[in-house]
């Protein structure tokens, strides 16, 4: 499969349970040597061979971008999800050989910023761990506001507050603590950029408040990986490769295309990057668009679909692939 980026064979060398929901995995290159460097905010796509299913899930790299000896990721267990995180938690063992993609960054720091204001929700903390290491080395000006459910589930809170006591602010939902967003955004010096990673509600809240207060769109960065959602099975005709494929209940359209041996482009697999955008030739039914790449009018047009996260319900769907 040549789609996506270059692949790297790695060996799992360490697995650490961070808390009840989150586990950290360390990957080192199987052949030895050095891994490519990356920039804070980058993710890697991890290939999981789960029986006869191959899953490709993106995870933010949280290790030091300059440390080429290993990559580390943190995986939050999602009991309701399609099984990728459960596979990582339950089946992956130290010594396993796996394949990860070269790093791709869709959430990079804008280094023209005079100050970096980071807002994290839950497992959304992971890209910031790498960005903070990058900024510390460059003596960057940053501050972090990190909301999590409670102390027990606050991944890396101790590490962050002990290494950066003056720059890290933590808020626990269970203790009714929340970010005072309007006041926080109001006093920021010119040249501040906002970075937000967390649940969709948090991203929408921050983007909405920033727009209301007159922040330029270019100074507000966000990353939200959408996990593909399960749905009713459906049939798709791939016109270019002349194949008819079935998309299973717990499978994404992109995964079904790949399973049929058709090379389809992708990078983020989470509805954000735009790489997998596919033209619709004809359809009879309705689209379940879930990406945040296409514009609303494109969603309504029936001419495009993002197969990594979006689905279809109806009689026929013919794609230009």
């Amino acid at each position, binding site marked *: 499969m040549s789609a996506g980026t270059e692949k790297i064979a790695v060996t799992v060398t360490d697995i650490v349970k961070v808390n009840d929901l989150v586990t950290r995995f360390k990957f080192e290159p199987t052949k030895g040597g050095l891994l490519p460097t990356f920039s804070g905010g980058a993710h890697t796509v991890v290939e999981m061979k789960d029986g006869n299913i191959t899953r490709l899930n993106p995870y933010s790299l949280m290790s030091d971008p300059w440390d080429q000896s290993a990559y580390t990721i943190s995986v939050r267990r999602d009991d309701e999800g399609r099984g990728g995180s459960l596979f990582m938690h339950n089946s992956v063992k130290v010594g396993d050989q796996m394949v990860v993609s070269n790093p791709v960054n869709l959430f990079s720091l804008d280094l*023209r910023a005079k100050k970096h204001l980071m807002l994290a929700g839950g497992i959304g903390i992971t890209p910031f761990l790498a960005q903070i290491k990058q900024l510390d080395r460059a003596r960057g000006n940053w501050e972090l506001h990190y909301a999590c459910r409670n102390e027990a589930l606050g991944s890396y809170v101790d590490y962050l507050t002990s290494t950066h006591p003056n720059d890290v602010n933590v808020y626990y939902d269970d203790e009714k603590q929340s970010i005072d967003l309007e006041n926080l*955004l109001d006093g*920021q*010096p*010119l*040249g501040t950029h906002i970075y937000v990673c967390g649940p969709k509600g948090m991203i929408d809240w921050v983007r909405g408040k920033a727009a209301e*207060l*007159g*922040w*330029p769109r270019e100074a507000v960065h966000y990353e939200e990986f959408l996990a593909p959602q399960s749905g009713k099975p459906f049939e798709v005709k791939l016109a270019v490769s002349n194949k008819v494929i079935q998309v299973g209940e717990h499978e994404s359209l992109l995964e079904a295309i790949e399973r049929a041996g058709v090379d389809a482009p992708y990078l983020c697999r989470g509805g954000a990057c735009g790489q997998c955008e596919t033209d619709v030739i004809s359809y009879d039914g309705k689209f379940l668009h879930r990406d945040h790449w296409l514009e609303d009018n494109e969603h309504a047009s029936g001419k495009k679909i993002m197969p990594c996260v979006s689905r279809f319900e109806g009689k026929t769907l013919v794609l230009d692939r």
Partner: protein
Amino acid sequence: MSKFNFPESIMSRPVYGTLEPRSGKAHLMVADAQGAEAIIGLSKADSGLLSKTHIIYIPKGTGDTYTGKLEKLGAAQLYVGPSYEAAKTRLQRTLAGAHMGLQVYLSGTEGLMGQAMLEATNAGIPHTAIQTEHRGSVARRMQCVHCKGITEDVMTDPFVCSHCGLSLFVRDHYSRRLAAFQGVCIDAEDPGNVPASVELYK
């Protein structure tokens, strides 16, 4: 009417729009000469805007045609200065103390808008988030690509560099970093063969 519709040109050439009120708690308007008309237009579009606005205005040859009208707008601050150079430290100080959410509106000549844009982008505002509206003269601020000297208010093409004396062709190639268009020697291949100067856009 002091508006001029510039013909379409290369990508590098700045494109100006029409100022519109935006949401925000603080607003900064920088204008010269007929650019005052665009500010007066903004105050009509949103009557509450000016009470949150700092205006920096350089009449530049229009005398007191607009200053009285600007005074009546009720801006939080109004500064009327003799030249852009004289106003520049005020602009820099205002930007240094400003917070994110500040809205910047520029209107008037290209030289004024370009230089104020440079200060605003240096202060950390993305250039795409700064509104501009051209009013008044089509004169340009030109950099001689040979001696690097700046000649202000160039009205003819070609023109003589006020620093090194070369005859320069007026290009649409623009530098945001210098806030100037590029002027290139027009008779380098055939010294002395300089076409007659014509007024820009005539």
